[in-house]
């Protein structure tokens, strides 16, 4: 599926005509065949490539492909099946009263830190340099485009929620300093570790469930009907960031890397302690107060972040503890560039 899309994109759009019937049929067949689209490598890469046409910088293709009717149809078909699978596998948590304060309190309760093993604690204390690099490669699927997925959602939000998201995004994008943009600080950390910071450099190595974390948030941002899930997801993401990032910064320094690599993680300790407050009360809470019918989707969106991101990091931890690579293709076997 992913290959077929890349082949189509490799052709000039002018030769392609208005309809790529084969591609739409193949998409449909791939969806029907798949038992779990969240863990389907082929469909997740396909969706990432289709989303990539909206972001730019993911595949080398004519800009006009973005709104080609057959590619839009394929994207929407995969997204519908993906959303349905997520709704099957991720439950809606207990619902609070639809007030900003109660929504924030419920989100903080849902995301409260748990003791015990986690990928970030492992990175702090035990990970090898190779495992730290693997972690950074896994994270790069989202983080090289950090904050962009949520930016799609800005015009779709009512007043207070919109102002809140803007307040967070301004900080994500570096408060006016392009060097401080989170995606740029992350790219710097990748270079500091000797990794390729080109988007998709390691895409073939990343397991589907990690790609799903990113395609899910892109889908939430791109679809107005999912703005509740977007707000809940982003809140939970911010609420589960400061403490793990502090652990990871410890691991970075334990392994002898300097501030250029640690900066990204240090920055998130401080930034996300601010963002989580704004996100919980003003973004998610503000959205629910303006549109109470979105309450269940806000809480569900929060749970999708915890659950799907949790699957990805639990799987990575399991591999590392067993002495295996968490990537589909270990780093020493990839040339770095696809």
């Amino acid at each position, binding site marked *: 599926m992913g290959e077929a899309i890349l082949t189509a994109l490799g052709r000039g759009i002018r030769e392609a005509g208005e309809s790529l019937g084969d591609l739409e049929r193949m998409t449909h067949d791939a969806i029907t065949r798949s038992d779990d689209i969240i863990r389907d490598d082929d469909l997740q890469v396909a969706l990432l490539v289709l989303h990539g046409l909206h972001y730019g910088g993911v595949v080398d293709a004519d800009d006009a492909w973005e709104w080609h009717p057959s590619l839009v149809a394929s994207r929407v078909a995969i997204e519908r099946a993906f959303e349905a699978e997520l709704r099957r596998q991720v439950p809606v948590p207990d619902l609070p009263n639809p007030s900003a*304060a109660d929504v*924030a*309190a419920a989100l*903080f309760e849902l995301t*409260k*830190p748990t003791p015990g093993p986690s990928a970030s604690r492992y990175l702090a204390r035990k990970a090898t340099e190779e495992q730290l690099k693997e972690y950074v490669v896994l994270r790069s699927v989202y983080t090289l485009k950090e904050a962009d997925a949520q930016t799609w959602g800005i015009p779709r939000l009512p007043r207070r929620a919109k102002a809140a998201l803007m*307040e967070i995004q*301004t*900080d994500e994008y*570096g*408060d*006016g*300093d392009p060097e*401080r943009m989170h995606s740029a600080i992350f790219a710097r950390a990748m270079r500091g570790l000797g990794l390729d910071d080109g988007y998709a450099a390691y895409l073939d190595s990343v397991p589907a469930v990690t790609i799903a974390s990113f395609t899910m948030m892109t889908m939430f941002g791109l679809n107005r009907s999912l703005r509740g899930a977007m707000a809940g997801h982003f809140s939970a993401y911010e609420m589960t*960031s*400061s*403490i793990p990032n*502090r652990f990871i910064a410890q691991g970075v320094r334990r392994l002898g890397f300097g501030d250029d690599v640690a900066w990204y993680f240090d*920055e998130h*300790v*401080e*930034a*996300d*302690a*601010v963002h*989580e*407050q*704004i996100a919980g*009360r003003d973004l998610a809470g503000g959205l629910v107060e303006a549109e109470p019918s979105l309450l269940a989707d806000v809480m569900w969106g929060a749970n999708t972040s915890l659950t799907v991101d949790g699957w990805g990091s639990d799987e990575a931890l399991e591999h590392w503890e067993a002495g295996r690579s968490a990537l589909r293709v270990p780093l020493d076997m990839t040339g770095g560039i696809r």
Partner: protein
Amino acid sequence: MTGRPPTIVACPDGPLLVRGDAELETPEGEPIDRHGRNTVALCRCGASAIKPFCDGTHKMTGFRSED
């Protein structure tokens, strides 16, 4: 600076969220670097490792603001 009068939100069981043109200073009057951030969170649980800023530790210690 934003030209906006400072506001401080006391976040339940969490930090003080400071927006607007508030100068942060040490007791000696030295400016505290806000790292370019327009909105900052000041620790009020006492447990942060990056004081005066909050680092989320209040969630691990079960801090209650009782407000």
